[in-house]
């Protein structure tokens, strides 16, 4: 319990830090983006929207502390991240709400799958240390070193084309209407295969290497020798004794690397023009849509924190030593 409470406190603190960073970043922008925007919007902007923009950018003339309180108020009470510049006057929250499911579906799924797959292969290679598979490690290293987006480009080049089954971009075919129809779901899956494959191959290599090293390290622990001495089957020793222990550092590694992973996988969306948050971010960066960029940063950070917390809980379940206090 105590451990969980400590972690919760930490995540709350980190969330606060991220929100605060988000508050300060736009204050570094010189000039008055709101005025520019109002001019650009040519009178379509409402007074309320202008006020929320001014709070977001701290241009309402109050001192920094009042600005900060207003910012928190807008964020938590009104759940408002301001209107997006590029999709004006659509609120940022709406833009994000539209693209988030795509990202969660693609990246969430592939990240977990690559972890499971990579760890599984790593267990096997680490256990059969010195076998044929070890010779493939440099290849794995090479694959792990290819940037996600470059691998995505190669995949598009090789697997798509006029006659290919796989579409090269988008989240679904233009002719289908989004909704819970079989046509849409099939189209969405078809469009997800290549991006998912790209992320999977690029990410899996890293997990294989990490888990393999952990297996090798754990294999020289005394309790592994004892397990062999007990005459247990090879499978049992490998899974219940070696892998079970080697998994623990991998899980904390997984939690901590989520932040790194998210950054890399976003680029795959860009390459495949997949309608997720990564593509939105790309567009926002291109059109200097600061409210959208900030919103995305905030949402993603909070999601990563939540995923981290989940990983913490899994770790807690797997390692009896952290449950000491019961």
């Amino acid at each position, binding site marked *: 319990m105590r451990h969980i409470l400590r972690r919760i406190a*930490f995540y709350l603190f980190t969330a606060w830090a991220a929100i605060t960073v988000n508050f300060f970043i736009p204050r570094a922008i010189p000039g008055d983006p709101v005025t520019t925007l109002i001019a650009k919007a040519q009178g379509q902007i409402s007074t309320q929207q202008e006020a929320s923009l001014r709070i977001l950018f701290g241009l309402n003339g109050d001192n920094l502390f009042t600005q900060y309180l207003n910012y928190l108020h807008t964020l938590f009470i009104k759940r408002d991240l301001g209107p997006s510049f590029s999709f004006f006057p659509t609120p940022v929250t709406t833009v994000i709400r539209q693209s988030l499911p795509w990202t969660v579906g693609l990246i969430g799924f592939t990240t977990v799958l690559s972890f499971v797959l990579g760890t599984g292969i790593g267990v096997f290679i680490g256990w059969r240390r010195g076998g044929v598979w070890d010779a493939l490690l*440099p290849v794995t290293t090479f694959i792990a070193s290819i940037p996600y987006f470059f691998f995505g480009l190669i995949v*598009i080049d090789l697997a798509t084309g006029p006659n290919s089954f796989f579409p090269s971009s988008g989240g679904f075919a233009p002719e289908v209407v989004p909704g819970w129809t079989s046509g849409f779901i099939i189209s969405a899956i078809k469009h997800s295969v290549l991006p998912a494959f790209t992320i999977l191959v690029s990410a899996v290599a*890293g997990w294989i290497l990490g888990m393999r090293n952990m297996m090798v390290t754990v294999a*020289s622990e*005394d309790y592994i020798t004892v397990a*062999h001495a007990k005459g247990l089957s090879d499978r049992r020793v490998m899974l219940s004794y070696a892998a079970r222990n080697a998994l623990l550092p991998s899980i904390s590694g997984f939690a901590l690397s989520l932040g790194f992973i*998210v950054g890399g996988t976003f680029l795959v969306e860009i390459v495949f023009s997949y309608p997720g948050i990564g593509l939105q971010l790309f567009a926002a960066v291109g059109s200097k849509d600061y409210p959208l960029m900030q919103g995305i940063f905030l949402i993603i*950070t909070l999601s990563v924190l939540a995923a981290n917390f989940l990983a913490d809980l899994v770790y807690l379940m797997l390692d009896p030593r952290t449950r000491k206090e019961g």
Partner: protein
Amino acid sequence: MTLPAADAATLTAAETGHAATGAPVVSKKGKRKRFRFLANAKSAVGLGIVTFFVILGIVGPWLAPQDPSELSADLIQAPSRQHLFGTTHLGQDIFSQVLVGARVVMFVGFTAGLVATVLSVLIGVTAGYLGGWVDDVLSALMNIFLVIPALLLIIIITATLPNAGDGLVALVIGFTSWAWGARVLRAQTLSLRRRDYVQAARATGETSWRIITFEVLPNLTAIIAASFVGTVIFAVLSEITLAFIGVAGSNGWNWGTILFWAQSQQALAQGAWWWFVPAGLAIALLGTGLSLLNFGIDEFISPRLRSAGHTKVKTVGGRKVRMRVGFTPVLGAPVAATTVPSTTTTKLKDSAP
């Protein structure tokens, strides 16, 4: 992207390494070899690749046959004698772009790596050595920087900064990516601090700064090197990503910029594979080199990861058997010499179910 998962292994191995004295330590001979890890094939290859790119970073722009931005009439040409890597939609020479880009990539990567390493040593060693509330505060800071998606933060910051140059980008990357190294160093310092030799140095009357610089730091060299290499990998990828999505580097050439133009000009749809393949391969190769170097250092830090040299052994039956934990191979003593006849295959009492 290289995940720092391998470092997790290093971390735990370094923490427990001291207790690993199950079998007698065999490697005791000779002088202390500080650069023994170079004997490792992985690190040798890795170092070779990295050295190649460092040299390329230095001499690349001088070797470039053309100004990388210079336009010409050869639009989207496949590789030829004149344009080794072909040309862009504006007739720019891609070979020159890759050569010139190398310097920026190496500059940003190493600067960011240096900044991050200095920060991680300062913060990690301080937290680990001082302990107490200083450690609590610094650890919280490390963990915050670890869980916040670094690349995203870098993108947001660089996009917000007006005309971010290469130096600024390197600084931003450096200031956001020190946390992993700091965490590993903190853990290792924590365990070093409890080592008897640090206690003994204190008991001899050494001052704190001397203990940190002469007793603790020399024993952290390998880990610092590993964290430097790790950050360089991250910095190179981050920088290229920034250029690829058009946030930074638009006023100069790096490999990400090349890919940015290739992507935005639909190089793929035009079949211009030469536009993005060289730059991408260069990134992957540099990443591989750095990763290999890091594996070498990992194996140096944690001897358990070292391969045992010959792992195949010829056994009694003349079969080749792999050395592995739990089943020590038996070398081929002449079977005929045994005095126990035909009992070797006798079933044991409990082996039948």
